[in-house]
């Protein structure tokens, strides 16, 4: 793994920036200084800029959208996690979720290194479509929102058990502001946003399938599992609204939803039907 890092300084720089963001965001859990808070956001912005540079660089090098292999998609996913987080940071005016987001983005890049492909695989006929980029981008921004929602749900569970985390949420850690945030509402908002994107992604995929193969739905394992994902989050929204689910069980359901997302994203290779799938690319 070291040889890859030695040859790709920009990749190291992006990872280091996420690690730095993680460190400084963690410091905002302890410090009330405005400088620390600003430094954390600055580190995250720098990490995102470097991450974007990796994507653009690969796009130019490959002469196609870099969403083909697992490695490429991981690099994009870490960008989406960071970008969604920054929007949420502005929206809720708190940095309390920062360490979790930075950790997830960093872990994502770290995993990308382990799945590194030196090659640039050329696009097979099925992917040569105008729907390719919107389909992937919509899905990954949606996944980024779901990752954020999961991080918040985890924090919610921790806040219910440990005073340290409860206090963080109460004082809006990392801001000069005080005033508690409704952490349930944050998870809900993120899942609503993600659900809209998952819906669009699924339907765009269906339109694409229709235009490529003549069928809206071909029972591809990834299709089936993305439907399962959609149904789980649909259940979350429904149970919250109709049955009034709140607290731990809602948080656990949000986490379970993300577990299904991760299986849909990474677990297809384990399925016996993977060979026949249009979504499993081993290069």
């Amino acid at each position: 793994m070291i040889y890859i890092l030695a040859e790709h300084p920009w990749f190291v720089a992006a990872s280091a920036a996420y690690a730095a963001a993680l460190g400084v965001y963690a410091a905002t859990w302890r410090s009330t200084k405005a400088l620390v808070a600003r430094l954390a956001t600055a580190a995250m912005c720098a990490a995102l800029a470097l991450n974007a540079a990796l994507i653009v660089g690969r796009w130019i090098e490959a002469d196609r959208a870099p969403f083909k292999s697992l490695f490429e998609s991981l690099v994009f996913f870490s960008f989406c996690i960071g970008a969604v987080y920054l929007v949420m940071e502005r929206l809720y005016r708190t940095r309390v979720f920062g360490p979790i987001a930075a950790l997830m983005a960093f872990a994502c890049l770290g995993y990308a290194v382990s799945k590194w492909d030196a090659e640039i695989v050329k696009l097979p006929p099925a992917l040569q479509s105008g729907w390719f980029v919107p389909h992937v981008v919509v899905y990954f921004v949606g996944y980024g929102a779901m990752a954020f929602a999961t991080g918040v749900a985890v924090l919610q569970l921790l806040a219910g058990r440990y005073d340290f985390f409860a206090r963080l949420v109460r004082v809006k850690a990392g801001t000069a502001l005080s005033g508690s945030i409704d952490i349930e509402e944050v998870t809900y908002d993120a899942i609503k946003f993600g659900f809209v994107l998952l819906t669009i992604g699924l339907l765009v995929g269906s339109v694409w399938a229709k235009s490529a193969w003549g069928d809206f739905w071909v029972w591809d394992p990834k299709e089936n599992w993305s439907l399962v994902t959609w149904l789980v989050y649909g259940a979350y929204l429904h149970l919250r609204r109709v049955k009034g689910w709140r607290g731990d069980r809602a948080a656990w359901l949000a986490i379970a939803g993300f577990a299904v997302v991760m299986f849909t994203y990474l677990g297809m290779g384990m399925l016996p039907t993977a060979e026949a799938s249009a979504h499993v690319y081993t290069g």
Partner: protein
Amino acid sequence: VAKFGFDLRLDRFEVVRYEPEHRVAYYRAEEVPCPDGKPDLEFRLKASFDPEVGVKHLLPGGDSFRIKTLAPEYGTEGKEMKNPAALLEVRIDGDWIESPLLFAHQPGKNSVRVGDRGALVFEKRNQETKADVSNVTVVDGGKDAATARVLVNDPFTYKGWTFYQAECNPNDPTFSGLQAVRDPGVNWVFLGFFLICVGVAWMFYVDNRMKKAPAPAARPESHR
């Protein structure tokens, strides 16, 4: 069985490969599970590089290589028999080693070993399909009415029937499997999709009922 009301003739099926015609491919022997339990070694394509002189490429595992010289038409044979040759410099465990001259069209003389399990092969690009193309002609009323190229992601429509590239055999230009679909209501389905997307966003962001669900304490009854 629905009738088209016209005939469709396959003129030729072709597989279009990515350019350039030759490549340097990196293969690696991997263990593949065997039915009898003992794993088998199989060379698998791990990376494919366009031949460009001087560009250093990193291989999985940390070794690297670059093409030192490239002779697209090496040898004295005629143009039809051109035999491209390449000389590689390979860095294995930190040491640069020059390969023998590799000939793309001479199996046995086209590869160099990299470590225990890897090999670089200078060869004709026989994978990496750019497009599967069915060249077809519509015969309507006894005469040729239209010609078309049917590709994945680029179907062909004639008189309400749409033909999709569905099956093929890369080695058989006389065979192609097309899927024929007659779907006059398809735009209504697309409209429905669009309305679902708008509706989902609407219920969350415009309609007040889902915008901010009331906290359970504020609700008189959370279970019915």
